[in-house]
C-alpha cells in the first residue's frame, strides 16, 4: 500500500514536471521516468502484461524516438521553448478548467460498486479459446477483431511515415560512422540473445504474460541494434520483400480471420480444436512483422539531411 502511494505521488509529480518544466530536456527525461514508474503501477495492479508492454514501448521505443528528436531539435530553441503558461490569463483559465476534475473523480469514486466485468465470463470460456493465459485469450480469440485492426494501425502508421519521406528507407539516412569495434562486438553479442528472448516471449504468451507484441518489440530492438551498427542490408536489399515482412502480421490476421468463412463459420471464428495452433501461427507472423516494423519506423523518422528545404525557412 505504501508502495502504491509512492508510485501515485511520483506519477503526479512527474506529470506536473512535464507540464511545468521550461527546459525540453526535463520534459523528455520526466516522461521517460514517468514510463518507468508506470511499469511499477502496472505490476501493482496485477497486470504483468502491461508492465512488459510499457517497458518495451514507453521505456524502449518512445524513449528512443523522443531522445532522437531531442538531439534533432535546436539547443537554443529547447531551452527557451516556452513553458506553461504563456500568459497569466491562460494560466488562470487553465487552472479554472481543472474544476472538471471534481465531477470526473466523483464519477470514478462515488459511482457505486464497479461491475464485476467480463472476468468470470472469460474464465468460463477460456478452455474454448485455445490458450491458457486470459489476456492472450481475450486478445487473440474473444477480441481477435481488435487485435487484427491494431496490426492494421501499425501498418498504416508505417505507410503514413513514408509520406513524410516520399521514398523507401535507404541506408544513407541511417546514422553512419558508428561502425565502432566495441559497438559492433556488442551488437553481435546482443542481437542473437535478444532474438532468442523474443522467441521465448512468443512461446510463453500462450500460458503466461508475454505474447506477440512484446516479442515483436524485442525482435525489433534486436533488428534496430543491427541496423544502427552497420548491418542494415536486410532493410535495403529488396523493398518488396521487407514490405512483405512488414505486412505479414495483417496478412496473418486476415488469413486466420477469413479462413473460417471457407469452413462455413463466422468471420474470425478460429476452428475449434485448432484454435491454439492458429493463434500460434498468427502470433508468429505478427511478431515477425512487428519486429521488422520497428527498424522501419526508426529509419522513417530520419529526415534526409541532404534535402533541407531552406527556401521555405527563409520565406
Amino acid at each position: 500500500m505504501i508502495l502504491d502511494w509512492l508510485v501515485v505521488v511520483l506519477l503526479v509529480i512527474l506529470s506536473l514536471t512535464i507540464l511545468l518544466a521550461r527546459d525540453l530536456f526535463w520534459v523528455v527525461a520526466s516522461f521517460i521516468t514517468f514510463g518507468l514508474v508506470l511499469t511499477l503501477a502496472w505490476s501493482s495492479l496485477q497486470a504483468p502484461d502491461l508492465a512488459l508492454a510499457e517497458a518495451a514501448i514507453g521505456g524502449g521505443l518512445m524513449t528512443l524516438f523522443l531522445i532522437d528528436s531531442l538531439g534533432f531539435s535546436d539547443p537554443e530553441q529547447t531551452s527557451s521553448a516556452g513553458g506553461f503558461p504563456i500568459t497569466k490569463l491562460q494560466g488562470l483559465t487553465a487552472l479554472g478548467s481543472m474544476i472538471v476534475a471534481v465531477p470526473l473523480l466523483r464519477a470514478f469514486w462515488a459511482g457505486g460498486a464497479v461491475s464485476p466485468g467480463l472476468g468470470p465470463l472469460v474464465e468460463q470460456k477460456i478452455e474454448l479459446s485455445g490458450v491458457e493465459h486470459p489476456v492472450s485469450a481475450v486478445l487473440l480469440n474473444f477480441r481477435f477483431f481488435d487485435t487484427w485492426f491494431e496490426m492494421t494501425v501499425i501498418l498504416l502508421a508505417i505507410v503514413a511515415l513514408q509520406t513524410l519521406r516520399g521514398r523507401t528507407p535507404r541506408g544513407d539516412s541511417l546514422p553512419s560512422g558508428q561502425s565502432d569495434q566495441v559497438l559492433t562486438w556488442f551488437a553481435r553479442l546482443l542481437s542473437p540473445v535478444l532474438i532468442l528472448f523474443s522467441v521465448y516471449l512468443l512461446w510463453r504468451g500462450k500460458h503466461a504474460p508475454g505474447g506477440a507484441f512484446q516479442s515483436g518489440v524485442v525482435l525489433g530492438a534486436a533488428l534496430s541494434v543491427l541496423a544502427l551498427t552497420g548491418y542494415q542490408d536486410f532493410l535495403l536489399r529488396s523493398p518488396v520483400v521487407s514490405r512483405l515482412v512488414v505486412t505479414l502480421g495483417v496478412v496473418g490476421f486476415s488469413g486466420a480471420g477469413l479462413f473460417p468463412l471457407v469452413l462455413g463459420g463466422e468471420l474470425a471464428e478460429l476452428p475449434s480444436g485448432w484454435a491454439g495452433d492458429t493463434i500460434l501461427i498468427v502470433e508468429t507472423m505478427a511478431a515477425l512483422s512487428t519486429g521488422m516494423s520497428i527498424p522501419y519506423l526508426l529509419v522513417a523518422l530520419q529526415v534526409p539531411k541532404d534535402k533541407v528545404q531552406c527556401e521555405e525557412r527563409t520565406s
Partner: protein
Amino acid sequence: MSSSALFGGTGIIIFLVGLLGTFSLPHLLKKIVCINVMGSGVFLVLAAVGNKDVGATNDPVPQAMILTGIVVAMASSVFALALARQIAHRSGFWLLPEDREKL
C-alpha cells in the same frame, strides 16, 4: 482507499494534466509528450477498472484493451513526432504558426 480507487483517481488527474499541457504548451514535442501522458491516464483508469481487489478474479478484458490501446496510441504519436520533426526542420520552429505569433 483500495489500490483500484487510488490508481483510477490518479489516472484521471494525469489525464487532465496531459490535456492541459496539450492545449497550452506551445512546443510541439511537449504537446506530443502530453498526449502520451493523457493516454497513460486513460490506461491507468482502465487498469484500475480491471483490477478487482481480493476475492474476485481479475478482469483481463481491460488489460487487453490497454495493450491494444498502447500500441495504437504509440503508432499515432510516432507519426505525430515525425510530422512535428519535419515541420521543425522545414520551418525552423517547433511551433504551430499561431503559437509563434504569441511568443
